[in-house]
């Protein structure tokens, strides 16, 4: 597929023919207008700008708008008019213990998922840089497979691995000697019935899906560092730990910064994995902020106004992190 595209250049389209007779000179005049006002880049951006504006930016504005309204079931079926309620939804949320519980779960789980994904990914990236060419290609192909696995599949597989009856995780933990934390009490242990084990499982899925991207990016970053730097550090008697913190990390700081912020954004907003692991919207004490917002909107009776306020809070948190991400990207020179 690839080869046919790059191998047959050009005869996809005949050169532009003469303008149609019914519009004498129209095309030339339009082209001259575009050229004179330097409109070409704007015309090229128009389709993407329109699609993004209608399908991404406008819904964001709508979320903000709904969050100040009492939009719910009554308004949906037309039994009552939609009214502006000012900050009513937000005031309600701030006094809602479920909101704080879900926010806490989101923050805590991201605080574990992000460092874990970064550490595992960086270690694998460093390992890849030390391996021979063939072995490195093999290991990175395998990791990229994990990255490409759909979140739905990964979550269902991990639930199966950790299921109390017939799951391989509980079997393994029960077999493990007690000084390693194993023991018979693991047999039949449920990983989905309460928040801590459920989020442990979700963390496993997130790390498994997320570390390959970190590893491949770190590897690419390592390749930009001249090998002489490592060699001279080694000659100076630095061990691997020292070399990493004295040479590798300072040089790759911008990359790590971007990876950190991306991970924070992804893991704070993790949805699919948690949704599947906690068994759809069943267990309210296992909701994170995204799931809580979603269930407010889409379980009966729908409370779109309240859910929009939650969604807007989620969006604002993400945007605050994104500001850091954008600044790190600008510093890295990504906008050139």
């Amino acid at each position: 597929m690839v080869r046919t595209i790059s191998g047959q250049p050009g005869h996809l389209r005949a050169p532009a023919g003469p303008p149609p007779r019914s519009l004498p000179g129209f095309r030339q005049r339009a082209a001259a207008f575009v050229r004179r006002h330097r409109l070409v880049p704007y015309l090229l951006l128009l389709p993407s700008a329109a699609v993004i504006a209608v399908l991404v930016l406008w819904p964001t504005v709508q979320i903000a708008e709904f969050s100040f309204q009492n939009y719910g079931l009554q308004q949906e079926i037309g039994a009552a008019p939609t009214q502006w309620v000012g900050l009513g939804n937000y005031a309600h949320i701030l006094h809602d213990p479920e909101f704080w519980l879900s926010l806490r779960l989101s923050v805590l789980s991201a605080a574990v998922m992000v460092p874990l994904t970064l550490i595992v990914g960086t270690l694998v990236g460093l390992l890849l840089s030390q391996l021979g060419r063939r072995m490195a290609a093999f290991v990175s192909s395998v990791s990229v497979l994990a990255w490409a696995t759909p979140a739905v599949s990964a979550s269902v597989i991990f639930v199966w691995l950790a299921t109390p009856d017939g799951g391989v995780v509980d079997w393994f933990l029960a077999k493990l000697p007690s000084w390693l934390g194993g023991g018979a009490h693991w047999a039949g242990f449920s990983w989905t019935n309460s928040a801590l084990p459920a989020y442990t499982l979700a963390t496993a899925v997130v790390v498994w899906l997320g570390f390959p991207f970190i590893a491949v990016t770190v590897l690419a970053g390592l390749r930009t560092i001249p090998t002489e730097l490592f060699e001279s550090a080694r000659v100076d008697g630095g061990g691997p730990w020292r070399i990493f913190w004295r040479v590798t990390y300072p040089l790759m700081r911008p990359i790590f910064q971007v990876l950190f912020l991306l991970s924070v954004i992804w893991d704070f907003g993790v949805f699919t994995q948690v949704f599947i692991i906690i068994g759809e919207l069943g267990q309210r004490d296992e909701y994170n902020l995204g799931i809580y917002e979603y269930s407010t909107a889409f379980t009966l009776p729908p409370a779109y106004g309240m859910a929009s306020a939650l969604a807007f809070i989620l969006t604002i948190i993400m945007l605050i992190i994104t500001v850091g991400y954008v600044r790190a990207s600008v510093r890295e020179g990504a906008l050139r």
Partner: protein
Amino acid sequence: MTTLSTSSPVRRRRLLSRRARRAGLNLLGLLVALITLFPIFWMVSTAFKPATEWYSLTPHPLPSHPTLGNFRAVINGSVIGLPYWNFLKNSLFVTVVSVVASSLIALLAAVALARFRFRFRTSYLIMLLIVQMLPQQALVIALFIDFRSLNLLDSLVGLILVYTAFALPVTIWMLRNFVAAVPRELEEAAAIDGAGPMRAFWRILLPLVAPGLVATSVFAFIFAYNEFIFALTFLGTDTAKFTLPIYVQYFYGRTGANWGAIMAASTLFTIPVLAFFLLVQRRLRAGLVAGAVKG
């Protein structure tokens, strides 16, 4: 051997320790690969096991009496009553159309961003970075309400629109690097030879950007094929319209604990995308890097 015996003991020791290091690293690499592969392996292995084997107190890595029964149940449609092909068809339709649409739209934008300097260029790039980070579980509320009034719920067209839009930021961002990598002199030379801008685009730029187009479209493909939240929300009631992720999730939710069948459904959903990945992965890794680190 002769070189070893003639060399000094110090050099021999160093060579041996280097070999030991190599072996240790390879072992570590193998371990990482095995741990990473294990969940995928276990999914496929379970899918081939009869119930007596997956429902067992001592798990066995490989099925001792492999069966196709689980796959048959999925393909014949034992849960929703529709065969697997129906959902594969939905998924491929949505994915292919949205990938083609987003690639074409992104190519235009990428040319503008890589080849022209104009006002708002930086703002547009920053806007793309921000848009990429907006939480989908937030936007889905507004899009659900809009699509309901436009009769786009329970419709694959609605999903195509959303997938096209949400794939754009990353696709534009990555394609921009590929367009920028094509030497501008080639187009200038074509212009001197009398080719118009359109001709230069089709004859020079497009063929050279094609590998990048493939790499970026793989990302759009993965996004659309794997996407969960929008499909879950928009395709709520019409099971015949389900895409594969929703189908697998529904299958998992409705089959009780028939893990053999669930893993068969999951395998039939996952393996096509992994196979596709292995086919294009070299280009893909280039794209992954171009998107993440400034190329």
